[in-house]
């Protein structure tokens, strides 16, 4: 469904602060995959997601989505089938507009927007039916502004907005990071349920190794713009947090020593 071929992305290229965020990434994600991504800060996890959604255009390589080359497509053009939620709850919803207005905008994802009244009675009923299973009681408060909701409520709303209409790929960029542990857990359960119900392909960045192990069928570990370790299915199910940490240090160490070999005469 989604293929990366030698995708490379630099930030501040040509300056002293040049950063190689994606280093010739090759990656194949099949339909129905739920991929978790872990890695230290600056490993390129976020850039990976931004390259898929079009926020960060690669310097070289190609990204193919559903047999279509989307490498240089603008964000809005690929948004019809790709939903994305960022870490900050302010990013994925519109604070100054009401819950129902936000959902109405999301429901028209990728479709033309004309002079049809956005929120009418039928739409309200539809939105309430979609909100009720989320279990936060938002269906009774659809006329309030999203800015008055808590971070967890806003991320739950963002999840609904990302999945309500036709998106087939869901990108989650540390969408639980700004939430308290209890809220994060319930939003994570909602995430998993929506992915299963709507048969979505998903890519989830998380800084919690436990979440990365517990959820999904594939796990990627990134470092310095490369995918340094991958586990899937049974192998992934057998992973533990400690095993992952060991793996990380082991791989990093061998790289460091091989670098040293190269550098010393």
């Amino acid at each position, binding site marked *: 469904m989604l293929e990366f071929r030698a995708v490379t992305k630099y930030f501040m290229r040509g300056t002293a602060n040049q950063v190689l965020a994606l280093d010739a990434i090759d990656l194949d994600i099949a339909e129905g995959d739920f991929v978790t991504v872990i890695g230290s800060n600056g490993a390129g996890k976020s850039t990976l997601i931004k390259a898929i*959604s079009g*926020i960060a255009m690669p310097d070289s390589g190609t990204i193919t989505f559903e047999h279509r080359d989307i490498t240089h497509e*603008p*964000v*809005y*053009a690929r*948004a*019809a089938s790709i*939903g*994305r939620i960022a870490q900050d709850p*302010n*990013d*994925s*919803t*519109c*604070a*100054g*507009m009401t819950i129902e*207005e936000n959902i*109405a*905008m*999301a429901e*028209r*994802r*990728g*479709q033309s*927007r*004309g*002079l*049809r*009244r*956005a*929120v009418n009675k039928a739409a309200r009923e539809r939105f309430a039916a979609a909100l009720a299973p989320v279990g936060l009681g938002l269906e009774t408060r659809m006329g309030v502004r999203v800015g008055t909701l808590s971070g967890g409520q806003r991320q739950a709303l963002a999840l609904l*907005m990302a999945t309500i209409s036709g998106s087939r790929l869901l990108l989650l960029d540390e969408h639980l990071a700004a939430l308290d542990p209890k809220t994060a857990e319930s939003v994570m359960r909602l995430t998993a349920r929506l992915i299963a119900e709507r048969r979505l392909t998903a890519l989830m960045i998380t800084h919690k190794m436990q979440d990365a192990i517990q959820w999904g069928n594939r796990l990627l570990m990134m470092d310095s713009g490369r995918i340094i370790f991958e586990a899937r299915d049974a192998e992934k199910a057998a992973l533990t947090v400690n095993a992952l940490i060991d793996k990380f240090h082991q791989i990093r160490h061998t790289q460091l020593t091989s670098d040293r070999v190269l550098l010393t005469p």
Partner: protein
Amino acid sequence: MDQLYSLLTNMFEQGFLFGFLALGVLITFRFFRFPDLTAEGSYTLGASVAAALLVGGFNPFGATFAAMLAGAAAGAVTALIHTKLRINNIIAGIIVMTALYTVNLRVMGRANVPLLSTPTVFGDVIAAVNAFGLTLRENALTTIPIAFVLLLIGAAILVWFFATDMGLAIRATGQNEPMILSLGVDTDRTKMYGLALSNAFVALSGALVAQNHGFADIGMGVGILVTGAAAVLIGEAIFGDRGVLWWVVAAIVGAMIYRFLVALALRVGLDPVDLRLVTAALLLLALAVPRWRLRLIR
């Protein structure tokens, strides 16, 4: 008593005519969160286009509609400069405002065009009403209901438009552009629609004011953005932030209060030269009062 009467009629007459300006500025200033200086040119553009067409023997309604289209075009140009050339939106507005000065002079052919002998929207409506056997004449009392009905139509269109799918997308463009982009909206287009709509209203205001005052002048748009912003801010200081319908009402009431205070300042003996100082003080007050009010509540 006479003084108060004329102050009040002035407030309604001029307030309603400047209400269109306030609605136009509301779109850019509130929804897009930037002061669109195109307004300084498109206000005069509206007056110039209407004046040139009226002098040329055009129907006043057609001339006024053409003025709106010209304003919309000016707004679209500002949006294109901003989105396609990636130039800061304020700078884009300044560029178009500057260019429009020449355009306006070319359209009018000179710096001032009197409209006292040409038909106007107001004169035509009064003539149409008089066909039913009345003998009304064009003055403040007859202008007020005409301006009010026109403004009501304009305000209703805005309230309706900003509740449609396209309207929501335009509002979200100003509030959270990355979010609406990720929902598949080409924000280059929504910005263009928003700026075109805004400047159509500003130009309409200019066209109506010119017909009401009896002339179009090259300098009439100078400082007009501040006038519109003052109306928006005064309204907001009174009504608070309660959604699109109340923003629209607030902008109109703000325009009326602004005109009233300006007329009052002149009436109590202030020199017209000092008027800008009054405007600046009003603007400052409108910005400061909501903060004081917050402090009082706490």
